[in-house]
């Protein structure tokens, strides 16, 4: 397996955003890379970093994380997302080359649509334990389960929370108007 399971280290020489994007395209198809965003800073807009926005299907997601790990141990930021009707779209945010020097960081945001008929994602906890709170949060806020996540206890919602209510959903699983108390 390609994932650096046993010895973890950050690589100190970065690959270019184009190289990483090409590798993603070659494994997951042309349409997998949505955009390479250049971010600049300072007076002359000379230095900054790049973000790659990608999209993969749920069943290819673990392969995607393993593909990132071919380059560097992926620093995990967070899972964001939205209830998009028939789907819950999750965005996983990673960083490659965080120690490879000035302006070398490469942000990777990968969108994974999860069909509401089967709200289960493969967990990446065994690869990156730092994902724990985000997977637990996504589980309680969106109702997306994670296959392989050992601790599925509530993380941010209170113990007495009615777990049938998923706060970030926009359908009948989400909070109804009566569940929301306006304080001002």
């Amino acid at each position, binding site marked *: 397996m390609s994932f650096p399971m046993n*010895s*973890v*280290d*950050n690589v100190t020489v970065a690959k270019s955003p184009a190289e990483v994007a090409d590798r993603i395209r070659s494994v997951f198809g042309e349409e997998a890379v949505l955009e390479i*965003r250049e*971010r*600049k*800073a*300072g*007076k*002359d*807009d*000379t*230095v*900054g*970093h790049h*973000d790659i*926005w990608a999209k993969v299907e749920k069943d290819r997601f673990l392969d995607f994380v393993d593909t990132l790990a071919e380059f560097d*141990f992926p*620093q*995990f*930021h*967070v*899972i*964001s*997302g*939205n209830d998009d009707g028939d789907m819950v779209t999750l*965005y996983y*945010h990673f*960083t490659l*080359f*965080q*120690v*490879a*020097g*000035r*302006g*070398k*960081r490469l*942000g990777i*945001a990968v969108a994974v649509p999860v069909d509401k008929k089967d709200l289960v994602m493969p967990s990446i906890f065994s690869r*990156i*334990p*730092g*994902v*724990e*709170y*985000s997977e637990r949060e996504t589980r309680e806020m969106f109702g997306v389960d994670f296959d392989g996540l050992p601790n599925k*206890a*509530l*993380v*941010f*919602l*209170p113990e007495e929370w009615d777990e049938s209510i998923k*706060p*970030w959903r926009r359908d009948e699983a989400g909070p109804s108007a009566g569940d929301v108390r306006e304080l001002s």
Partner: protein
Amino acid sequence: MDKKYKVPIGPVHVGLKEPITAWLDLEGERIVGATVRPGAIHRGIEFMARDRNPIQVIYLSERICGICSFSHVTTFLRAVEDAASIPVPPRAQYIRSLVLELERLHSHMLWAGVACYTIGFDSAFHLGMALREKVMDVLEVLSGNRVNYGVATVGGVRWDVTPELAKTVKQMVKYYKQEFTPFYDVVTADPIAKARLRNVGVLTYEEALRHSAVGPTARASGVRCDLRESSPYEAYGDFSVRAVVPQDYYGKAYGDVFDRFLVRVHEVYQSLEIIEKVMAGLPEGDIMWEKNLNKVLAFLKKAEGTGWASIEAPRGDDTHVVHLKGGDENVTWWKVRAPTYANAISWPLMFKNNELADAPLIINSIDPCISCMERMLATDSSTGARKVVTRAELLEKCREKTRRLMQNGGR
């Protein structure tokens, strides 16, 4: 054999930012395992943002945290500016960097002071807090406020650097260059303080990476990560910032509380240098992309896209993700990941094989909210007897260990 206990520390003290519960498994005084349970004060801020436009969310994001309020605002704005492709004038970028560094100064000084207080080193605590007042004064001159400065807005900042402020900043830098070193020396050279901080709450390099630790917590474990270096934003695009790691000073990163102290105090010096560079290089020009707020709102209403920003807040990488939908006035969705969210995952590893008396220090060492430990309940599982240990008693326990060390000459 030592008795086994399960001890919860936390969760709550009203009004403070990050109350958290740590369930500690103890054998006698030794911590053998820990489970962390946040969630005591989840305010649903991301949910609230759905009813607000991006300008209104600025003031919501400022209230995520009292200490690093400007970090959250800047990260949120950078995510909005990324989603809507809004440029920020150079002068505004410099002012943002200035306030970010001022915030880092007072945050790190607060932490260093409170760390000393936790081990019973009260004179150093008072020294730290007295030092911190100077930077608070500068923030007050800039914005009129000591917290929640209301400085930034979409595409720029609302307050300019006046000659008066420039003078105050200059005086502050001079003051700290003279006065901060005695504080640093008094703590790092003190054998008792060193004995309390060294080899306590260790997080190894590999653990820090695998558990996605960020900021000074990760750097203390030797990870050379700093978003100001790896992905320069705002004024950091014009000068380089090197990540502060203990191996550059002591040849080795222990990843303990002492290293977390060391990283933060050296970052104070680093921030002073950055502030000098920012003030020296401050470009002339506009401080806003668009002064007319209605035009900004109309532009944001038309904008469509998802924006992502991560910046180096005092506690580490702060990440915000924002989605704007064309034709929609409000923020469609917003995700905030504060640095403690990432660092709290490493707590159970830091607790392992430490003493109960070190638990307050370890919780404090990633720089969350110390008041999480307002009260705790100790249960003797063999008899079912319960005893509430107050915060004062727990603090006394922590200080007693320092006194014991002092009597034994630091051993």
